[in-house]
C-alpha cells in the first residue's frame, strides 16, 4: 500500500520540457514559418506551414515523453502506482494524432496525473480539465459565450455594416463539456440532458490557454488561462442547481459537485474494476469501490484499497488478456531491460497497434479483451516476441526467467516448451507468447 501514497513522478530522470515551454515553442515555430512564407510570397499551403511547425516544434518532445514513459514502466519500484498512472491517463485520454496535442500528450500524464494519482479525485479532475493539452484536445480555448464581452464588442462593430463577408459567429463549442460529463465523471447514463451539456459548455467558456496576439494576448503562453472576455456572464442552471459563482469559479464549483455525485463514484468504480479485475465488472466489487469513493469524498488511496481488498481481485480465473501496452511493459520488467532510445519504443507500439498517446478518441483505448484479441494482433505479438528473444537471448537463463515471471501461473507445458526450445531466443519468445504470460 505504500505504493499508493503521494505523487508518482517518473521513475527516471528525464529532461522533459514542461507543457508551457513546448506549447510556446509551437507558437514560435508557427510564427517563424508564417513570416518565412510571407517573405517568400508563396501562397496557399497554410495547412502545410502549420504541419511543419508542429513537426519541428513537437516531435522531439513526443519522442522524449514516449521513451521516458517506457523507461519508467520498466524501472519503477512502484509498478502498481505506475499502472494507476496509465489507467488515469487512459481515463482522461488525449490523442497525439491531433496536431496541437502531439507534443503535449505526455505532459498531461506527467503534470496533471502523476501529482494527483494518489490524492483526491477533485484535484485530479481539476488539474486535468485545466491542463492545456485537454483544453486544446477538446477545443475549449475559443469557445465563446454569446453574451460575452468579446461577442458584444464584435456585434457593435458590425452593427448595420454589411461587408458581404460571412461574419465570424461567436458561440460555444460543447466538446469539452460533453466529454467531462460522459467520459470523465458521470458516465453516459449519468442522468444529464442536452440542456445540461449546453449549460455546462457556457459555464466553462473562457477556460483557455495563455498567449495569443492583439486582443487575444493574455496569460502565460502555454498555461491554463481564464479569458474573462470570452466567458458567458451570469448565473446558470446545471443539473437542476443554479450556479451563481463568477468567472472561473463557476466551472470549478460544477467540477466539485460532479466529483461528489454517486453516478461519478459508480462510473469510476466500474472502470477501475473493469481495468484491474474483469471485462464484465463483478457488481459486488464495483459497489464496494464506489462506496469507498463516496464515503471518503473521492480520496483515491482509499478507493484503491477497496479495489485491492475485493476478493474478486484475487480470483485466479478472472485474468485479462493483456493490451499491447501491458504486454510490452511486462516484458521489459520480466527481462529487466529498459529501452535505450525512442525509436525502438515507437516501432514496437506501431507494430503492436497501440501507438503511445494516440487512442484517437477521447474515450481512450478500449479496456476489454475482445478489443485486442484479433488473430492478426496475435501474429504481430509473435513477431515482436521473436525479435525480443533474439535481441536479449544472451544473458538470459530462460528457465529461471519463466519461473520468475510466471510464478505459480506457470503451466508444465510452458516450462517444457521453454526447456526444449532450439535457442534461448526462441525460449524467450515461447515464454512471452505463453497463454499465462499473455494474460494478467
Amino acid at each position: 500500500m505504500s505504493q499508493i501514497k503521494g505523487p508518482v513522478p517518473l521513475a527516471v530522470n528525464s529532461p522533459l520540457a514542461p507543457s508551457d515551454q513546448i506549447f510556446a515553442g509551437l507558437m514560435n515555430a508557427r510564427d517563424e514559418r508564417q513570416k518565412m512564407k510571407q517573405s517568400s510570397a508563396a501562397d496557399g499551403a497554410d495547412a502545410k506551414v502549420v504541419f511543419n511547425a508542429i513537426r519541428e516544434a513537437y516531435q522531439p518532445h513526443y519522442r522524449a515523453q514516449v521513451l521516458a514513459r517506457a523507461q519508467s514502466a520498466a524501472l519503477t519500484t512502484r509498478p502498481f502506482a505506475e499502472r494507476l498512472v496509465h489507467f488515469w491517463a487512459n481515463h482522461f485520454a488525449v490523442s497525439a494524432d491531433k496536431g496541437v496535442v502531439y507534443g503535449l500528450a505526455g505532459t498531461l500524464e506527467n503534470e496533471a496525473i502523476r501529482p494527483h494519482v494518489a490524492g483526491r479525485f477533485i484535484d485530479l479532475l481539476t488539474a486535468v480539465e485545466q491542463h492545456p493539452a485537454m483544453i486544446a484536445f477538446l477545443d475549449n480555448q475559443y469557445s465563446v459565450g454569446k453574451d460575452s464581452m468579446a461577442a458584444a464588442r464584435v456585434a457593435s462593430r458590425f452593427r448595420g455594416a454589411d461587408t458581404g463577408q460571412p461574419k465570424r459567429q461567436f458561440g460555444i463549442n460543447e466538446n469539452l463539456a460533453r466529454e467531462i460529463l460522459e467520459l470523465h465523471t458521470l458516465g453516459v447514463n449519468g442522468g444529464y440532458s442536452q440542456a445540461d451539456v449546453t449549460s455546462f459548455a457556457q459555464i466553462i467558456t473562457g477556460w483557455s490557454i495563455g498567449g495569443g496576439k492583439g486582443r487575444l494576448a493574455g496569460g502565460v503562453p502555454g498555461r491554463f488561462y481564464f479569458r474573462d472576455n470570452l466567458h458567458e456572464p451570469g448565473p446558470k442552471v446545471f443539473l437542476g442547481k443554479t450556479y451563481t459563482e463568477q468567472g472561473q469559479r463557476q466551472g470549478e464549483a460544477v467540477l466539485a459537485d460532479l466529483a461528489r455525485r454517486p453516478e461519478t463514484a459508480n462510473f469510476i468504480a466500474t472502470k477501475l474494476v473493469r481495468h484491474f479485475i474483469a471485462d464484465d465488472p463483478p457488481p459486488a466489487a464495483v459497489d464496494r469501490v464506489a462506496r469507498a469513493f463516496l464515503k471518503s469524498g473521492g480520496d483515491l488511496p482509499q478507493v484503491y484499497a477497496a479495489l485491492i481488498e475485493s476478493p474478486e481481485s484475487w480470483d485466479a480465473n478472472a485474468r485479462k488478456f493483456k493490451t499491447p501496452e501491458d504486454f510490452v511493459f511486462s516484458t521489459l520488467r520480466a527481462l529487466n531491460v529498459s529501452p535505450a532510445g525512442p525509436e525502438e519504443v515507437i516501432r514496437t507500439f506501431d507494430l503492436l497497434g497501440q501507438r503511445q498517446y494516440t487512442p484517437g478518441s477521447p474515450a481512450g483505448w478500449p479496456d476489454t479483451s475482445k478489443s485486442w484479441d484479433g488473430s492478426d494482433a496475435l501474429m504481430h505479438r509473435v513477431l515482436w516476441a521473436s525479435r525480443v528473444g533474439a535481441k536479449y537471448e544472451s544473458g538470459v537463463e530462460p528457465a529461471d526467467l519463466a519461473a520468475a515471471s510466471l510464478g505459480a501461473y506457470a503451466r508444465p507445458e510452458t516450462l517444457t516448451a521453454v526447456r526444449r526450445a532450439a535457442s534461448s531466443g526462441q525460449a524467450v519468445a515461447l515464454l512471452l507468447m505463453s497463454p499465462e504470460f499473455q494474460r494478467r
Partner: protein
Amino acid sequence: MPRPTLLNTGRRRFLIGAGALAATAAIPNALFAYTGGASRLVVVILRGALDGLAAVPPYGDPDYASLHRELAIAAPGSPDGALALNNTFGLHPSLTFLHERFAAGELVVFDAVASPYRDRSHFDGQNVLENGLTKPVGTADGWLNRALAALPRGAGRPGHSAVAISQNVPLILRGEAAVISKSPQVTPDVDEDLLARLADLYSKDDWFSARLSEALQTEKMVDGAAVDTAADSSAMSKESLKAAYPNRVGAVARMASELMRSDGGPEIAVIEASGWDTHANQGGAKGILATRLAGLDQGLKSLADGLGPLWAQSAVLVVTEFGRTAAVNGTRGTDHGTGGCAFLLGGAVRGGQVIADWPGLRRTALLDNRDLKPTLDLRSVFKTVLDEHMHVDANTLAKRVFPDSSGARPLQGLIRA
C-alpha cells in the same frame, strides 16, 4: 488457374442473358452457394460522426447556407461548388470518384438517415450502429456477425467468410461466427519452427489455439493473394502496399480487395476510418474535412480498382454513427448531431438515386432545435442490402439480426436484380 467463383458467375449471367431461364432454374442453388456465392459486401465505418451537410450539401434547401455558413458548399456551377446529384442535393467537391459512380448508376446516396440512437455520444452511437439494437448495451456481438451466421451457404464451403481490416475485430463483426482480422501492416514472415512450437504450446488452450490457427489461415490467404496479383500488372505486391498507399483508407481498402479476390477469400469485409469529429475549423470546399473526404474518395476508388472483376458483384456501405449540428458552432466547426448521410456503392448497386425524405432545415423542422431530423432508419438500409444482396432471409433479419426493428421496414430496389 481460373477462379471458380467468377467462372460460375459469368456462366450464370450468360445463361440469363441468353434467355435460357429454364437452364438456370435447373442448376441447384447449392452449386452457387458452394462456390462462395457471388455477392461481396464491404462495410466502411466512419468513426467520429461525419458531417452529412458537408458531404452531401443540400444546396437547394433555403436555410442551408445561413445555417452552415462558412462551412456550406456552394451550389453546383459556382467556384468550389457541389457536384450535382439533383436539384436539391450535391456531393462535396472532394468526392469526385463517388460522383462519377453516381453518374454511372453505381451509387445510392441516403440523406436524413440515422441509426435508432438519439443521444449524442460517439461511443454509444457507434455501439448502436454496430450492435444492431436500439440501445448501446444488451449484446456483445455485432449485426454483421449475426448476418454472417445466417448467410445461405452449401455444406463444405471452405474457409472464413468475413474479415476486419485491422489487427482486432470491431464490434460489428464480433460474435459466434468465426471471422478473421488482417491489418494492412506488412508482417514479415515469422519463423515456422516457432509457430509450430506455439501451436503445440497452445494445444490445451482453446482460445489461443483458435486465434493462431485463424492467423495462419489468413497468412496463407494473403500469400495466395500476392501470388495472384503478381500476374496482374496493375496490382501491388504486399511489400509495396504501405509505400504505395500512404493514405490509410487506401491501404486498408487495398488489403480488403486483395483478400476478397484470393481463392476462398472472405465475401464480407469491414473497414474503419476515423478523423470525422470536426468540432473546430472544419473548413468548407477546402480544409480539414475536405482533405479527409478526398482520402475517403480515393480509398473507395482503390477498393473498386482492387476488386477488379469482383466489383460487378460488390456492394459497399459507407456509414457513420450520427450527423452533426445544422448550424456552425462557435469554433468554425460543428457539434454532435443526429441525422446525416450514408452511401451505398458498387457494381451490384442500382445507383443514381438519392433516397431522402427531406425534412428541411427550418428551425422548426430541426430535431431539438439543432439537428437534421432523421426520416430513415439505417437498419432499413442494412436489411435491404442483406436481403437483396446477401440473400439473408427476411425472418432472420427481423428477428435475429435486427431485433426490435419492425419500425425499420426494408426498402426496395437497392441492388440490381
